């Protein structure tokens, strides 16, 4: 079944400064939706609004046409990887995998060096190792949509490749929204790409959009969905 998550009519202000307005974003099963934008343009805020953690002045969020009217979210509907840490230091990986109903052997398949951590508490892991566990938990656990806020930060390149493979595998059964300033990785895997500028989202159609909106100068040829970016 294809599930569709949509958000529009967002009006978010901080201290009378308008951050988001006329936003529209759509995610659906089988697609990776990239979200780019300069610092402070509201990418994380938009994800928090979707997850019910930030309440704007106006908003309309729908899953398969059904409006989400409260800030509560069912885990079967969506999960969210925040920019900062979210797993509890005192928990073991065994316990976390049990809570999220995940198979540890599947993690070992992608990250063999994590085998020794099964009974370790999270506090004993490095920042990068911890981030991989966090990404994996959100990405692989059962849900319709997952939102990843800067998943590639603090992760070494070889692991980024493994994460990208998992993202591409998981998009088969969920919709994924992803934002990161390592935008080449985003362009590499996403099917749709939105850029936020001046509080509005723009669904990009070609390379000029990303450059015109002032986010990045793309010099290499990159294909996003059916669109080719780059000179």
């Amino acid at each position: 079944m294809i599930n569709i998550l949509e958000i529009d009519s967002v009006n978010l202000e901080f201290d009378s400064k308008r951050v988001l307005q006329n936003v529209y974003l759509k995610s659906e099963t089988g697609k990776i939706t990239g979200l780019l934008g300069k610092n402070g343009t509201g990418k994380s805020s938009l994800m928090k609004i979707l997850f019910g953690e930030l309440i704007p002045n106006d908003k309309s969020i729908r899953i398969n046409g059904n409006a989400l009217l409260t800030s509560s979210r069912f885990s079967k509907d969506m999960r969210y990887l925040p920019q900062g840490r979210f797993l509890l230091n005192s928990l073991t990986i065994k316990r976390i995998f049990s809570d999220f109903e995940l198979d540890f052997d599947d993690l070992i398949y992608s990250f063999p060096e994590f085998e020794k951590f099964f009974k370790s508490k999270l506090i004993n892991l490095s920042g990068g190792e911890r981030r991989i566990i966090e990404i994996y938990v959100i990405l692989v656990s059962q849900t319709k949509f997952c939102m990843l806020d800067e998943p590639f930060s603090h992760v070494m390149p070889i692991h980024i490749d493994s994460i990208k493979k998992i993202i591409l595998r998981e998009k088969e059964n969920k919709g994924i929204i992803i934002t990161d300033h390592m935008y080449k990785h985003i362009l590499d895997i996403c099917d749709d790409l939105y850029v936020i500028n001046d509080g509005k989202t723009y669904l990009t159609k070609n390379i000029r959009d990303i450059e015109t909106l002032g986010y990045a100068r793309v010099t290499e040829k990159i294909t996003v969905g059916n669109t080719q970016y780059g000179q």
Partner: protein
Amino acid sequence: MITLSCLSIIYTWGLVTFTALFWFKIITLGLIFYYIHNVKKDDFYYYKNLGLSKKTLWFSTLTFDFILFLMLIIITLIVR
């Protein structure tokens, strides 16, 4: 610790201290709420990703703690 301190006081001084202890408990619950809500706010994402909202967590824990406090006070007064 807070509840145990209250039990110790009410065991020693009796029912006359109940009003003060009641408000002491309410104020400490408020302080705990303020501390966790601000300092430990990132931890809530763990529970929300499991489908547990802040409201559910706070309502269940604060209610449980307060009912436990009242029950232990009553038991202490009976035992005294």
